[in-house]
């Protein structure tokens, strides 16, 4: 049986806010994720939808999914962008983090 480990990553967005992501991967697929931090998302509930959207996805396929979600739902991400979130998850895959 394979054991999966929850990774914690702090990703400080340049001129932006801090993303703190707890994520579990199975291979390169996300199996669990929780995004916390001092950013803003409007409407707020969209962040929970984003977390749900990411489950089961490969990191290399999430950018268009998130961009489409943000655009069609009129979501405003303040203090980070879709690209920052993808970059943070890429770093989580290789176990690196940026310092706040």
């Amino acid at each position: 049986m394979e054991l999966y480990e929850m990774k914690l990553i702090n990703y400080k967005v340049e001129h932006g806010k801090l993303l703190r992501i707890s994520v579990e991967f199975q291979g390169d697929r996300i199996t669990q994720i929780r995004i916390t931090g001092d950013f803003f998302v409007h409407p707020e509930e969209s962040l929970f939808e984003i977390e749900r959207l990411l489950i089961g996805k490969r990191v290399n396929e999430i950018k268009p999914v998130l961009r489409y979600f943000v655009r069609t739902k009129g979501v405003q991400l303040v203090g980070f962008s879709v690209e920052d979130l993808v970059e943070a998850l890429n770093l989580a895959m290789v176990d690196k983090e940026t310092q706040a």
Partner: protein
Amino acid sequence: MKWRLLPMMELNGAMQMAIDEAILTARARHKVPNTIRFYTWKPSCVTIGYFQSAQQEVDLEKAKQAGVDVVRRYTGGGAVLHDNEVTYSIVLTESDVPSNIIDSYKKLCLPIVYALRLLGLKAEFAPINDILVSGRKISGNAQTRKQGVVLQHGTLLLKVDIAKMFSLLKVPNEKLRDKVIERASARVTSLEQELGRSVAVDEVIAALEKGFTAVLGISLERGKLTRFESELAKRLAREKYATKEWSFMR
């Protein structure tokens, strides 16, 4: 345009957050006009942003020992120790602010910038959501939008105690704690520090009232919470803001 100005309230964190939400709900139901209020915190309180984790951000044991409440806000943003400060909240219809969030922060922060200038300080709005004096943060702000209504609340520091702040707040990487504290000391300021004298809450509130009326082009009519608002606030404080489910939601 006439807005309502509520009396200064000194209450605990759960109740302050509950009142802000109750006003937002009352505004959404067209029961009250756009509203401004000023408040202070008793006991001192750490609020965390809507998306933050209390365990990640706050030393809960030390907060308990120090008699400091910990409450999750309805708004995003970072963890704040509310100690020696004046807090304001503005509730207004969404159509009264730009749809872009940062533009709306600017619109609602400019009255505070104006108030600081009245107090003799050279202040400026610093996107995303801060106000600086001499390049150092003196005010942080956070907003949410629900049912066509904007709630923005923010702080204006009277006095700052970085050591106390960081005895209660955790830092993302404990190995860098000293560096983070050093950086925060250089980046945060207060009215007392900038003016070289202690400043009374009333003096600050008077300047803020002038700031809001002058910059937003409104008149303020003194009013009080409606029965709907105070009953809803008491219920929200009890059933939401003071509960473990809410505090430890993330």
